[in-house]
């Protein structure tokens, strides 16, 4: 089964990541009217599309019950993704970007007491739509891996050390594509993900492969079920820059070849230019700006997005020898979940803060440019 993309392949009941939801906490309250969020229904991300969305996340709120109280990691996020499209979700640690992605398939750790509110509508191949947030665990298992696959940051932790990579790919194939020649397809998949000498490497154990090669194997396992959506959660963060370049190119090529949509989660705004069609920037559990990638990189509207683009260190060479070194940090640190203040969540670190910014929650608004949304009271003046 494709769950070995996130855990040991021998644990076949799927309870490892989502069971906690049912064992430790009340069932997911999904589809309940979400009255406290001002965003409900209002903030579709991106351009209105003539083709129906493949995935529609609406007013998602994911909270974790912890010893120190309820931590809302995701707070009213709405995103849409069309077939074959790439949406990059960008944010720093604690922004909720990964929890948003993991909420789609309820891939939480055992013991995480997670509650989800909101809708996660998924369009099946026959055109009908189901709400993944309301789907019972056994039914969700047929979506995981088969329809939506996931790759993670650390490929070493995701592969089982006691099985060959071939066995782990075949496991996925047996579950989702029974009756096919698993041996042959496993070799083909390894070739597809750019592993040289796949006939030999299919018999290798994970420890015999480098980090970059293991990430390729993870991608092969994810592709085994021909998913219609691949969620890539910081897939290159643990890799060297040269290998990162190879994996980014591979993802872009495979996306075209397999006709998948891609949900690309990253902290690195520098990576989105080459892979994304649209970008959503998250901060403290909310989307603060979203839009087509070119527009967002060229003319960011939200002060946080701008600051993120500007905080990358730069050096301008001067012939005098006194080079200009540009280091523009964002003061302070991202808020910890649970310690979020009133009003705009970025206000405490924002260079453009006014008194009114800290009074009331700020809504996402449509900006002038098509498909752009921004959550800032001052975007008109600053744009």
């Amino acid at each position, binding site marked *: 089964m494709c769950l070995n993309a996130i855990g040991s392949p021998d644990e076949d009941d799927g309870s490892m990541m989502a069971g906690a939801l049912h064992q430790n906490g009340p069932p997911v309250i999904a589809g309940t009217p979400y009255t406290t969020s001002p965003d409900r229904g209002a903030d579709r991300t991106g351009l209105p599309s003539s083709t129906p969305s493949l995935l529609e996340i609406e007013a998602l709120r994911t909270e974790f019950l912890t010893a120190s109280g309820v931590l809302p990691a995701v707070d009213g996020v709405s995103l849409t993704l069309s077939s074959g499209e790439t949406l990059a979700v960008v944010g*720093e*640690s604690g922004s909720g970007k990964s929890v948003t992605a993991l909420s789609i398939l309820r891939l939480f750790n055992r013991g995480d007491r997670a509650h989800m509110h909101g809708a996660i509508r998924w369009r099946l191949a026959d055109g009908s739509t189901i709400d993944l947030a309301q789907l019972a665990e056994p039914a969700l298992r047929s979506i995981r891996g088969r329809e939506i696959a996931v790759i993670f940051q650390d490929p070493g932790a995701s592969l089982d050390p006691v099985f060959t990579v071939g066995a782990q790919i075949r496991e996925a194939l047996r579950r989702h594509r029974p009756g096919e020649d698993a041996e042959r397809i496993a070799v083909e998949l390894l070739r597809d993900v750019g592993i*040289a000498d796949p006939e030999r490497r299919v018999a290798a154990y994970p420890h015999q492969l*480098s*980090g*970059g*090669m293991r990430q390729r194997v993870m991608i092969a396992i994810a592709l085994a079920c021909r998913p219609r959506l691949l969620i890539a959660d910081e897939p290159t963060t643990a890799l*060297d*820059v*040269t*290998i*990162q*370049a190879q994996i*980014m190119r591979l993802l872009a090529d495979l996306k075209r070849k397999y006709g998948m949509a891609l949900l690309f989660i990253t*902290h*690195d*705004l*520098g*990576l989105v*230019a*080459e892979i994304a069609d649209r970008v959503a920037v998250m901060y403290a559990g909310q989307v603060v700006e979203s839009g087509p990638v070119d527009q967002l990189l060229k003319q960011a509207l939200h002060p946080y997005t701008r*600051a*993120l683009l500007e*905080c*990358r*260190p*730069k*050096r301008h*060479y001067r012939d005098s020898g006194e*080079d200009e*070194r*540009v*280091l*523009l*940090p*964002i*003061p302070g*640190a*991202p808020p910890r979940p649970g310690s979020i203040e009133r009003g705009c969540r970025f206000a405490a*670190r924002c260079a453009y803060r006014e008194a009114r910014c800290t009074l009331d929650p700020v809504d996402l608004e449509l900006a002038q440019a098509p498909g752009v949304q921004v959550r800032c009271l001052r975007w008109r003046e600053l744009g």
Partner: protein
Amino acid sequence: MMDSMGLPTPHEPPPLLALRKVSRHFRLPREGWAAAPVLRALESVSLEIAAGEVLGLVGESGSGKSTLGRVALRLIEPTSGTIEFEGADITTRTGRGLRELRARMQMVFQDPYASLNPKRRVGDALDEVLKLHGLSAPANRSERVVKLLEQVGLSADDRSRWPREFSGGQRQRIAIARALAVRPRLLVADEPVSALDVSVQAGILALLRSLQSELNLAMLFISHDLGVVEVMADRVMVLYLGRVMEVAPTRALYTAPRHPYTAGLLAAVARAERGGRPSVVLREEIPSPADPPSGCVFRTRCPFVQERCAIETPRLEDLGGGHLRACLRKDLDFGSSLS
């Protein structure tokens, strides 16, 4: 003046730190009947850092850059070669002599969550360093602790707080304060911002940069992030499989690299920032340092490889202007392809 490797010595008087043909080999566990394999983490690396100079050290994982930083501080013993500090050979120094040395060379590590004692208040941790090295009279110590905290952008109130109360960036500031407590002349910073959020990184870099010029601190700045090194370093050294591929003043290295490996690294970054396809694409991955390729160790990934690259080992040659590189291809210049 030229040393035995034919390297010009760019600094008079003697450099603050000099490594001369330093190698470090690790013996790996024997497999079967074969002789125990040897991992050559560093192979005959020479470098010099002048007082107040920042040398950037870049390379992929497995390049030996962290080993080099630790060898320079005598945290790891070199297998061969010598280490000089302030003109004196410190390769075999032990005991009190080594302890005295530690007061003049300090290190900042990557993970600020692992490098601070969680059970010690921040003020006490700094006070302990001052006490151990006997650098401040007991009466002046608390004043000095406050000064150190302020120097790194924290406040006197932070003395009584625990490490867990600080964010990653603030913890790294505390680690820097601790390193500076002994008034070192050399700081080895090993990936000091890699564990931090991007919005916080620039603040730590700006702090290191201003302390460096204020205190005339020399730095060996180790990072896999070429953008970060470009801002911090006066000169940059590129390592691959424990060998020096290229050394140059920062501007020359970033705008006109002369080694295909440097060009490939820079192209990989430029692609990420500007989109489009890189001009120099590196194939595959860094081979195992226990089984490096013959001849030029970089040849298995080099887009410009020729037959002789498998046979001859390139020497580090001087191109003038402090620019050195180890490549058999004399016709390669990547300045135009990157601009």
